[in-house]
């Protein structure tokens, strides 16, 4: 395989690709445009690796293939613009307080990568670690919170159960009076959790992959994947065919359709997950708030908007439109938590597609078709896993071995009955 283009990265420094306050001032003084963050390319006839899907996962995989493994003859094929799917529709929450040891280890690695991402790739992704709070409205959920806290603590994750009084201090507008229909009895508090600017995470990986020689092809749709015997040989696209010995399915919403192209069945059904955002108001909410019982999560962006999400719609669909029922119940639930928000206005609603697996855990790794890899089944937790999923997928592809962090997420677990149950922590667990 072709080695990376180190000269390009060096050039970046000289040509003003590096971002810093200083470069910003220099640019402000001298005027003129910034160098392009990524470039257009013709479709090459052959790539070493073709990645289907230019979202966070596909772009992170491309970046780590290049950076960690020197594999740069890579194409990322995106049918719309980069980040147009789940990467640009999620609510940008990052945390590692999962329930199973496998989940904790995996997401903890992701949090560490997020913490370094802005510096490592020289693009501020605005990761704000303002804390993540999961409310308990019943004895049973309080018990589950304590369980998660205990598992987390043993794995070195900052995670603890806090009282209503402590909740009130962190979120003064929260109704902890005990008079609510579903009173707040406590919460799981995870200080390293927070939010990032989801688009920026996509762009930083795209920019870095491009700088290392990866080709990004937007507005290019994969229409078929060619297999000879039981081996992948190439990809057909709306702009022409390319040959490639390795194809990685990094899509969400369409992952079962792409896998169908090589005859690999995915135990996935796709459901819409809706979200909404309010008008901006002055900062009043630091942590991310999650209530599993009320099916809602809330955070306030740096811009002042509240971002809301909830559980997936209870039916399979490929629609990315929102519904009235969703914003009605969402508003009701938010007001139960923070009644003084009644006059705040909802500005926009939308939906993204979630590929749900039976055990609420992803599928990362090889498939029965030689050369065809998947990084799919990301349900409602794909954003927070983007960096680590890219890193691990790249390693699996480059080395042909399955890294330890993703051993629990193999496709064959559905045949062996060794599911990885994250239902308890993932069902509405943003």
């Amino acid at each position, binding site marked *: 395989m072709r080695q990376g283009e180190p000269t390009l990265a060096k050039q970046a420094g000289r040509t003003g690709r590096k*971002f*810093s*306050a200083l470069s*910003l*001032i220099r640019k*402000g003084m001298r005027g003129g445009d910034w160098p392009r*963050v990524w470039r257009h390319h013709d479709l090459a006839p052959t790539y070493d690796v073709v990645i289907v899907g230019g979202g966070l996962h596909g772009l992170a995989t491309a970046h780590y293939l290049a950076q960690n493994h020197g594999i740069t003859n890579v194409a990322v094929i995106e049918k719309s613009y980069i980040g147009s799917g789940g990467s*640009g529709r999620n609510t940008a929450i990052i945390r590692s307080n999962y329930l*199973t040891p496998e989940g904790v280890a995996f997401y903890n690695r992701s949090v560490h990568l997020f913490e370094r991402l*802005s*510096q490592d790739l*020289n*693009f*501020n*992704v605005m990761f704000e*670690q303002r804390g993540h709070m999961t409310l308990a*409205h*019943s004895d*049973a959920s309080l*018990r589950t919170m*304590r*369980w998660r*806290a*205990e598992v987390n603590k*043993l794995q070195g994750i900052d995670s603890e159960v806090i009282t209503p009084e402590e909740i009130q201090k962190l979120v003064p507008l929260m109704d902890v009076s005990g008079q609510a229909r*579903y*009173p707040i009895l406590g919460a799981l508090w995870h200080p390293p959790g927070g939010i990032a600017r989801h*688009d*920026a995470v996509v*762009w930083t990986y795209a920019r870095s992959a491009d700088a290392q020689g990866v080709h990004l092809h937007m507005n290019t749709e994969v229409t078929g994947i060619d297999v000879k015997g039981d081996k992948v040989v190439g990809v057909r696209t709306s702009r022409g065919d390319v040959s490639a010995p390795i194809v990685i399915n990094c899509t969400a919403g369409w992952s079962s359709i792409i896998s169908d192209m090589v005859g690999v069945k995915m135990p996935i059904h796709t459901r819409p997950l809706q979200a909404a955002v*309010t*008008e901006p*108001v*002055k*900062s*009043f909410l630091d942590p991310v708030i999650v209530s599993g019982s009320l099916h809602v999560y809330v955070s306030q962006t740096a*811009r*002042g908007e509240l971002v809301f999400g909830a559980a997936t719609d209870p039916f399979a669909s490929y629609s990315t439109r*929102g519904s*009235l029922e969703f*914003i*009605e119940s969402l*508003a*009701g639930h*938010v007001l*139960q938590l923070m009644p*003084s928000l*009644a*006059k*705040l*206005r909802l*500005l*926009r609603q*939308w939906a993204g597609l979630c590929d749900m697996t039976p055990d609420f855990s992803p599928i990362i790794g090889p498939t029965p078709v030689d050369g065809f890899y998947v990084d799919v089944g990301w349900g409602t937790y794909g954003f927070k896993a983007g960096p680590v999923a890219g890193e691990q997928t790249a390693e699996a592809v480059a080395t042909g071995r399955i890294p330890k962090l993703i051993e629990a997420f193999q496709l064959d677990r559905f045949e062996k*009955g060794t*599911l990885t*149950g*994250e*239902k*308890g922590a993932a069902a509405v667990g943003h």
Partner: protein
Amino acid sequence: MTEMRLPPQPGEIIDRNAPLSFTWNGKPLTGYEGDTIVSAMAASGVKVFSRSLKYHRKRGILTANYLDPNTILQVNDEPNVRAGHRRLEAGMNVSSQNTWPSLEFDIKSANQAVGRFLAPGFYYKTFISPRPLWPAYQRVLRRFSHGGRIDDRVSDDHYDKRYAHPDVVVAGAGPAGMAAAIAAAEAGANVILVEEEYAIGGHLRYGSADDLAALAELSARVQANTNIELLTNSVVGARYDGNWIMINQRDPGHVRERLIKARAKTLVVAAGTIERPYVFEGNDLPGVMVSGAVRRLVNLYAVKPGERAVVFTANTEGESAAADLAGAGVEVAEIVDARAGGDLVRAKGRTKLSTVEVGGRSIDADLLVTSVGWTTPTSLLNMAGSRPVYSEGAARFLPGDLPDEVLVTGGMVGDGTTEQLVAHGSAIGANAAARAMKIRARWQRLTPSALPPETADTAEGSVPDLKPEAHMELYRASTHGFVDYSEDIKSKDLISAANEGYDLMELNKRYTTVTMGPMQGKLEVGNAVAIHAEATGRSIADTGTTTWRPPYAPTSLGALSGAEMNPVRYSPMHRWHVAKGATALVAGMWIRPEHYGDPAGEVRNVRNNVGIIDVSPLGKLDLRGEGVPKLLNFVYTNKWSRLPVGSVRYGVMCAEDGVVMDDGVVGHLGEDRYLMTTTSGGAGGVWNWIDDWLQTAHPEWDVTMTAVTDGFASINIAGPKSRELLSRLTEVDLDKETFGYMKVREGAVAGIEDCVIWRIGFTGELSYEVHVKAGYALHLWEALMEAGQDLGVAPFGVEAQRIMRLEKGHFIVGQDTDGLTKGFSLGIDWAIKLDKDDFAGKPELEWQLADGARSRIVALQPVDPTVVPKEASQITEGTEIVGRITSSRMSPTLNKSICLGVVADHLKDPGTIVDVRLTDGEIIKATVMEHHAHFDPQGERLRG
């Protein structure tokens, strides 16, 4: 400040006899009834209403209506009020947002000096290192966030909802919308006509004498037609699949806001057009307005917008605005006609407009009016799947293809005289009615019991042409200016973002945040698209617009939520429990008695005498038909084919992944007649699940299922004296030989017929569970309390029951099990019969058996019996997690700490000592017990 109120104007809507006092940033001001907040302020001479987001530039009136990005203000405790739209009320405290320490002197306006370094996305390029400083940067950035402030007091405002079933909803009551509503109503349709403003009429309201006359006539016809329900100060917020229409009715009386959910047979969109601002240097200076702003201020509110004006126009609206100004005594220094080659270059002024530069000349002016074209607000059409199509000749996007049940008229379609707009609206309204009648007839045919279809005229008439007038494409001058006022985005910013690589419209939008602010692009999308097209060398048509998403206008959480509707379920004995001082426990939808003051005492009383507990929330399903045994065999893991009449059996349900989902008992009451109980929390889920199997996988099974959870209340009578107590109230033979453990009988108790009585023992004591028709349950409860006085009968709550079941070693699904607990982990292998043909979860359970259960539920006894480890304490081997405590209590019966827990398979053998890590980190030892039951493991008491 100078008084800017004009003498009475012909169309003015203010009531000069009704002055209203209010305050602006603490200063007292006066306006009139009918004023908007902005018109009252402008009449008092206010020029600056806000500071911009990033540069904190002073901003004045731009559009003087709902969409004005520069007049979003805080009113009392309400943030982000559209003061260009909101009617003035006496006593309002109006203040500017996003300014500190004051609107006039704002420290952050220093940002203007460094503006060139604050290009869009600047935050992505800086604050990167050193990393430890990032939290401090964050706090600074967050202080720049826009918008008003949330008041921490909870107001006592009310909101409600209404369902409506109109034939036709008309969105917008301008001339075409009014005409559409009238025509539809006259064709027999019932119509809801929705207008965003406080009064109907659209642009006729601030038009000529002829316009006012036409408005008066149309308005009278609307008001007189009883088929039309008119909603003003209301907005059609969204259109969802099936023409499900959301209407936000603001201030309808009695409540603050109302959300109307209308299943409209047809929707007519007549939202008019939105006037586009022009992009040029200085276009955000106070004193620069669009022509509509001037026309509204002068004609509706009698406010003089300035003293000396320059009008830049490419159409007749600009000329009308100039005429309005002249009529109001404003000196019109010059009308610059773009059609004749007139060129507006830039506007200058330090904090407000002072000169206008036009084709090489400078003109002194404090008012610059632009009229450069329109945007079609296709939002509702997009929600119906329509993609707007760009017309170069008209310089605006026009509606694309529409589904049959959505129609469009008025300015969104084209331009014309009032007569032409009315003619088009009438034709569209009549067609909307005809289509609605067709749908109505179809619905009636689908309902056999309905009246025969009405014979309505469903023929559609022809629609007269309404073409957009030719208009020059005028988006940006030779200079750069603001495109998005709310977000402080300039044309230069969009171009540089495109050049940097964000060269698809959506990428540019996301990078610069253009159109992402409170206006959601309604004002700025046309300019944003045109400038992006310019930057990328593509046409506007190829560039396309950004996606318009619901809602059309921002909608309060209060309105969306409506009145709080959180159902609560109470058992028939609830009031009795409250009267006896029970502590309430919120258990899902139910409120239950947790205890009556002394749970340990309640336990001792059950162990020694007799207690009664209200277990009404138990899920109850009445199952009938020959197929019931097949169903039971399928949903439970054990066998049900030979359950005799008169017996009950315990069963565990596993989901298809083999994970335990519920447990309960089923009684065989009579031939083909069964009663199933589920856990309280699982009641709804099990009902859904079984229904799913019956409807989809096994419709051939003869099973009729009825949920009777609320129909029967349930009382458990437990304790050594329970037989004695129950025998005093029933003729049913309770003899321990004939009515043994796990048997069921039906009969009268306390005079109530058809009670179901079964012998089970969750508490580990001799006990009878009585299911009684809910309406008679309180009587039975009181009768038991009365009849058992001498036996020491006392009520016990959920906590005492939890303690006793733990003493007895009975697990609770969802507490002692979790999302990973498969059947064989329960430690009750006898209840799983893999030799059955098929049942839910069977393959997974076979795998589990072959691989060995990964974990087991066991009873655990702390070596130090005084220590009660908290539930969820982890069981560890070194740093590895090998189990956890799932239930723990101090046993009042045994006077020692007792636990249930989950341990890894290799630790399940009795006598194994495990490490339990308490939540404070201390490690204690606990012993794995032989039986789940700490108390009476042989079950002598419950079989007694």
